[in-house]
């Protein structure tokens, strides 16, 4: 079954990506995590996102485009990346979520991926 592991990080953690002292442990932990997923033979894909302030949110109101700077939700923890993972069940997905570095300092959400319904 496919699950999305959604990685939420604080502003500080986003800062660690480029901080001279913190960048190495930050990326080191993620590289190792990605490596462990791969070594486990799991079918994964995913992406790392730029910080929330680089986002732009679009909605149409009465046919008018409304464009807003920043992410959709203004929260302390922002979506920083995601991993799609194919494992037998939720428990296995939760095991991998707990190993995600962000679980120690931010939050990691696990959501089952809904297979798209067949369209005629």
């Amino acid at each position: 079954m496919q699950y999305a592991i959604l990685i939420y990080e604080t502003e500080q953690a986003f800062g660690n990506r480029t901080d001279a002292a913190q960048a190495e442990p930050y990326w080191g932990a993620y590289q190792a995590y990605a490596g462990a997923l791969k070594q486990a033979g799991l079918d994964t894909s995913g992406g790392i996102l730029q910080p929330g302030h680089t986002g732009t949110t679009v909605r149409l109101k009465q046919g008018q485009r409304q464009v807003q700077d920043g992410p959709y939700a203004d929260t302390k923890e922002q979506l920083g990346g995601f991993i799609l993972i194919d494992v037998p069940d939720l428990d296995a997905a939760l095991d991998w979520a707990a190993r995600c570095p962000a679980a120690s300092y931010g939050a990691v959400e696990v959501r089952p991926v809904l297979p798209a319904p067949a369209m005629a």
Partner: protein
Amino acid sequence: MTTARRGVEIAARTAYGRLLAYLVSRSRDVMAAEDALGDAFVAALRTWPEQGMPPNPEAWLLLAARRKLIDAARRAKTRDKVVHWLETDDCTTASAAPEELTFPDERLKLLFVCAHPAIDASVHTPLMLQTILGLNAHQIGSAFLVSPTTMGQRLVRAKAKIRDAGIAFEIPEAAELPARLQAVLEAIYAVYTLGWDAVAGGDARHRGFTAEALWLARLCVDLMPEEPEAKGLLALMLFCEARAEARRTTAGAYVPLSEQDTELWSQGMVHEAEQYLRQAAAAQHIGRFQLEAAIQSAHMQRSRGQAPDWEAIVLLYEGLLQVAPTLGARVSQAAAIAAAQGFAASLQALETIPPDAVKNYQPYWALKAHLLHSLNQGTAAKTAYQRAIGLSEDAAVREFLLGRSRQLP
């Protein structure tokens, strides 16, 4: 917080398991007893602040819960026998003044009900946590890393089975005892391990688990003083607990056992553990927990300024592997071999473990990295460190391993 509210909390904390076990022993229905006890606590929260704390809060709660249980059983009209039983029960007859009421402690029986072989082994521990400690499915689910919904369903299924399959509410006969005692002790140890892993960083709620596990083990020892393995488990956990303060620096960094400051080990707990271990050994019936406690005891040698007897530790692991061949014990034995016979022998021992079994087992990769590092096999060590780091759940351990890995050229 008002005094009455605190009174209810204290009663909930100290009496929940005792009251629930007693009610279940009469009704045989865990779910109904939980509901009734929950209602009794709500009623206490409502009436105690107005009328003051009753002289015997436990008795008050028991009588209230018993009434709820009778009402519920009457409404269901299918459990006449239960109603009769509840109404005529010696301990709770109306003639007994509530402040004098005492009732037998049925917690140990309830532990054995939870460990019944007809109940899925994966639910043994959660079920004990819920019935004896009153934790909810959400808390238990997070401890076992399954979703609260899943855990809730498993618990409900197990409780329905206790009720519908008519599982006997008793400590099993001698022939059955070893298997079920083992499940009870293993469950208690699992609770301890959850708290132990959560010592830093992790979920603060889990930290209380170590105290709960020690309490459950003491209960087993009190109620079954003849069982050496119960004492072995208590000794094992006391040894581990004695080192709790030394496992992290004040800044929260991980400190491996070999580098711990023995001054920070609690000598009082070590002493108590040694006593239980000695008493257990007197029964001359060795088991998994006594062996594990003996291994811990050997490590404690360091606090007396002596090097641990590593050959003895390797042998104790050999014994442990005979009775409980776990992955953890194999990896730990390999670690002891490193100290007793050198890194190469240790690596050899480690490599006899089938690769499939250790694919996602963090301690294996952490040890392997350390051994390869010590044997100057830099490239292979780096790869192993990467695996270990990627499989770590604990941020402090991850930091520690990253630090080690950085020392490689």
